[in-house]
């Protein structure tokens, strides 16, 4: 009598494996999109500052030895940490390093959102704010990821203080503070004068502050009443600190608490774009800049 051949039981993927797969796929997709975009602008967007600072330090040059302008506003010295991480890829091209940075940031953000149990928050990838962050190789996706991975938050506040500080102040942990303190100490050992010289070059930074730019922007202070709520504190912090363009506002998508609120905010984010495309870019409300040359 023939015994039936035992059927192998199909191996089921765990939730973690699915999340990792999704994050890798999204990272590859967004990194690829960024790569296509950077064919039009052959540099690494804002990530070029990380590469520039790392290269200058390796060559023994001064990373702040240039005349600042509205398009040339330097970052703090600790940005070199990320520059060193991606420098090997810049041997091929800066665009490749920038694309990999955006792909990695987006993948980490997607994984962190998925593991938080709020998968509907992935809708933030469908906003024009994220698209611009991708197109200009911005730090905001990684800053939003640090809401879920707090060890990164203080370090990112060192690199882009005016955008990362509202997130970092809600995510202060001992390991995160130690990491940031170590990076800050090393940067001061390399060049003890960098904070003053960097601050002295910020005069050209084109900025707006929501509290003062919005009509009746003072109403945002109503959030003070709910100061015990971490998301109210996040909103307040973002309202009082300067930002340059819409791509800096991705952290606003941390505020919705349900899929409905999220969907509403995503839909509303497309509205200003439909009304006035140039206005939504918002990188320079008083003149021309490279952001407004985004190819249609």
């Amino acid at each position, binding site marked *: 009598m023939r015994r039936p051949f035992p059927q192998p039981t199909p191996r089921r993927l765990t939730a973690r494996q699915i999340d990792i797969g999704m994050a890798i796929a999204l990272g590859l997709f967004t990194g690829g999109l960024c790569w296509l975009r950077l064919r039009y602008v052959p540099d690494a967007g804002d990530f070029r500052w990380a590469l520039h600072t790392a290269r200058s330090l390796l060559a023994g040059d001064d990373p702040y030895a240039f005349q600042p302008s509205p398009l040339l506003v330097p970052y703090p010295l600790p940005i070199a940490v990320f520059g060193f991480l991606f420098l090997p890829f810049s041997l091929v091209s800066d665009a490749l390093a920038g694309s990999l940075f955006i792909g990695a940031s987006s993948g980490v953000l997607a994984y962190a959102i998925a*593991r*938080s*149990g*709020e998968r509907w928050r992935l809708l933030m990838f469908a906003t024009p*704010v994220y698209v611009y962050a991708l197109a200009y190789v911005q730090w905001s996706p990684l800053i939003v990821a640090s*809401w*879920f*991975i*707090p*060890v990164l938050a203080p370090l990112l506040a060192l690199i882009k203080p005016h955008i990362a500080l509202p997130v970092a102040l*809600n*995510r*202060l*942990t001992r*390991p995160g503070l130690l990491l940031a303190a170590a990076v800050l100490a090393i940067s001061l050992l390399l060049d003890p004068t960098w904070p003053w010289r960097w601050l002295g070059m910020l005069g050209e930074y084109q900025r*707006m502050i*929501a509290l003062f*730019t*919005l*009509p009746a*922007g003072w*109403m*945002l202070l*109503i*959030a003070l*009443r*709910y100061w015990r*709520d*971490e*998301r*109210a504190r996040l*909103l307040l912090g*973002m*309202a009082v600190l300067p930002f340059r*363009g*819409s791509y800096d*506002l991705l952290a*606003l998508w*941390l*505020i*919705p*608490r*349900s899929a409905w*609120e999220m969907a*509403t*905010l995503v839909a*509303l*984010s497309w509205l*200003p774009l439909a*009304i*006035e495309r*140039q*206005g*939504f870019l*918002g990188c320079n*409300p*008083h003149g021309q800049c490279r952001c407004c040359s985004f190819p249609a």
Partner: protein
Amino acid sequence: MQPAWSVPLLFIPCLIFVILHGMRQRGHAPGRLARPSAGSMAEPGAWPEERRRSSPQGVAAAEQPPRNAETDATIVG
């Protein structure tokens, strides 16, 4: 010339979400009570399942034997 205020307009719906949540927390708004989201309960750095495991209530819940619906049912009459 684009209006500069068109960019931070997105702060307004966010403010409304914060106010609505605050009102629900205080029990002023009609409808269901606010269910704290995973993020809002977050110990910084902890995933939800780790948070559940690390909290005293979570440990107690995990150590309890599964409840039996038949024995738990209130006997009436």
